[in-house]
């Protein structure tokens, strides 16, 4: 008879079961079982008084860089960072080298991730080579383990191709995730358009570069009836469009990233390349709108857009620096700040970081009901620490949060009953 893991005295928060109570959680053989349902002496007890016990957090937008850019991150280091950040699963973007646009690459990623510290759900490319010309093989990739499709980083310019992608993806019951960017407006830009960009002499990217494409995706979702997920929403204007589309019943979901509800374009001052990402950090009014939209349901999920880079890409002139920041190990603490600031409640946090990503991607997890897979995140909401990139598990040290005082972090991560991270 196999061992029983007892998570004792924790506050179990499971919005799917509408559950929020201090109780014990029992795990055996990688599944959640009814506490007290079996009698055994082979138990491992964790006293979790003061901690939250949550369905494993799922980050639906992560760049693991493997294959091709292993100097920035590998599936192994990326999943270690994920586990340390409280994530039990991540969806990995296809902009690897080669691009994950076929079943062979998808299979490679899946095989590499076996026994890693977090589940990896590959996201395939919308178009071959993410070149925006012809459809990639969705069926092959799905069979190999892909859960969704995107040309993240290379927005699909051709509206007809995007329409076909949505229609064809729906035949395979796959989700399209849109990196919404009108390239002709963002071309050459490296931060939000506005006063700070003008003062710094940097080419700006207007909010409309995002919102125009968000509106296109909404229109195509209405046209095709297919599902559409908008990645990394940064702007108030986009949020307004998504809100009204949802009110009309359009099948659209959306995510944002912690940096969009934590930082503004001011973080770029001093030509800080660790605050350069795409879409760019926006104005305070956008940050406020993102926070509001997380509370009112317009935004469905918090995802990191974890984009590790080396100093080769970041210790250069600002306009030449690569876009993106590492985010896996700071996402939960930054999101917990929203709870402390009463922007969202604890149950909503779990919804945004676990239930919704599971539901949108159609993957296991997102609930702690008896019989569910034992993907569990234990959070100490009071634990204070100073985030240091040098101590982070990710190879990507490109974080604007280096040296930040944080409150609240994952103290135990568990994938299918296997402890993948422990800090208690």
């Amino acid at each position, binding site marked *: 008879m196999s061992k029983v893991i007892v998570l004792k005295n924790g506050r179990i928060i499971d919005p799917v079961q509408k559950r929020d109570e201090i109780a014990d959680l029992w795990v055996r053989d990688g599944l959640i079982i009814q506490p007290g349902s079996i009698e055994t002496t082979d138990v491992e007890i964790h006293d979790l008084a003061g901690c939250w016990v949550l369905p494993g957090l799922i980050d639906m937008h992560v760049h693991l860089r493997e294959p091709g850019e292993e100097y920035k991150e590998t599936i192994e280091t990326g999943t270690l960072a994920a586990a340390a950040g409280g994530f039990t699963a991540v969806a990995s973007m296809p902009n690897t080298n080669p691009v994950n646009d076929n079943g062979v690459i998808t299979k490679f990623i899946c095989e590499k991730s076996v026994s890693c510290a977090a589940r990896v759900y590959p996201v395939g490319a919308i178009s071959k080579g993410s070149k925006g010309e012809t459809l990639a093989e969705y069926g092959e990739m799905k069979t190999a383990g892909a859960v969704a499709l995107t040309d993240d980083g290379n927005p699909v310019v051709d509206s007809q191709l995007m329409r076909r992608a949505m229609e064809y993806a729906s035949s395979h019951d796959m989700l399209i995730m849109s990196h919404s960017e009108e390239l002709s407006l963002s071309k050459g830009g490296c931060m939000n358009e506005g006063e700070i960009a003008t003062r710094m*002499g940097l080419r700006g990217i207007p909010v409309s570069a995002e919102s125009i494409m968000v509106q296109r995706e909404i229109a195509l979702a209405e046209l095709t009836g297919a599902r559409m997920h908008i990645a990394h929403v940064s702007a108030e204007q986009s949020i307004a469009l998504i809100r009204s589309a949802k009110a009309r019943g359009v099948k659209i979901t959306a995510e944002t990233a912690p940096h969009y509800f934590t930082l503004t374009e001011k973080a770029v001052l001093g030509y800080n390349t660790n605050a350069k990402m795409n879409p760019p950090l926006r104005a305070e009014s956008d940050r406020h709108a993102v926070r509001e939209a997380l509370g009112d349901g317009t935004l469905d999920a918090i995802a990191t857009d974890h984009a590790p880079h080396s100093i080769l890409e970041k210790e250069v002139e600002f306009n030449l620096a690569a876009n993106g920041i590492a985010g896996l190990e700071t996402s939960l603490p930054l999101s917990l700040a929203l709870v402390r600031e009463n922007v969202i409640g604890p149950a909503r946090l779990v919804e945004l970081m676990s239930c919704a990503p599971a539901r949108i991607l159609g993957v296991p997890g997102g609930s702690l009901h008896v019989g569910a897979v034992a993907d569990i995140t234990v959070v100490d909401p009071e634990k204070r620490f100073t985030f240091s990139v040098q101590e982070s598990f990710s190879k990507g040290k490109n974080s604007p949060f280096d040296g930040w005082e944080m409150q609240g972090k994952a103290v135990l991560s568990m994938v299918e009953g296997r402890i993948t991270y422990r800090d208690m």
Partner: protein
Amino acid sequence: MQPDYQFQHTHIFGIEQLSVEDIAHILATARSFREISNRPIKKVPTLRGKTIVNLFFEPSTRTRLSFEIAAKRMSADTFNISASTSSTTKGETLVDTARNIQAMNPDVIILRHSSSGAPQLLAKHINASVINAGDGAHEHPSQGLLDMMTVMEHKGKIEGLKLAIIGDIAHSRVAVSDIIGFTRMGAEVCLAGPRTFMPAAISSLGAKVCRSVQEAVKDADVVMTLRIQLERQNDSLIPSLREYSRFYGVNRQLMELAKEDAIVMHPGPINRGVELSPDVADGRRSVILEQVTNGVAVRMALLYLVLGGSKGSEGQGESR
């Protein structure tokens, strides 16, 4: 100026970092140095033994020459490096270049670069002083200072003057330095040009955006035109140079609207007949060549001050 004033800047990245006192001090120092260039022997020993590197990643004739003459007139040893930014993608990074130059222990690096913020990046990795000689669309502080010096010489003050800047503000680091500098010194800065040449939120820098060139030039004390890059018409920013010249070119007729004693400035090089008609460029109001002369004095002052300079005195040059 406060008696205990001290110039504190080791690097000159932009006018943005300079206080009113800093600007006044730089201009006073430059004025005191101007006379050196008129001597039969145009050399003082002030910076003897100092090593100054001109590191230019963009082609430049006058700015580089101006810095070099300024350094040599103060007896510094100068070296010119012309580099190509295109090499950064396949070869040495700016940081590596900086570290290599640092290893030879220079005192000042004068940097021109197509990337905004490149001087700050350089300064993070070296011990030498960095003077920005133009970075991307960010700033060109020595140009802003020489413009202020020229206006001071003609008007005796900057405060209360109306300055019109006409042209491609969005792509001009000179415009940014001038807008910040002149508004900080109390002038009213009015901008005019097609909307495609106006950067976002430019009014937040303190300048007024005018609806027409006429409105900007009306009763102006100073009219400054900016060079129109010939490739802008290919970026769909203007339909043609011909049309630009007709609606936004500064000519004699437009200058009638300015004050009787208004001066005309241009950071050079001029596209004659495009942004500035030849008769105005060469006319009695034009101070364009005086700007160039003052450029040497301003750059002498900057080199002197970043290297420790006077710490508050009037400088080692003779006062006028």
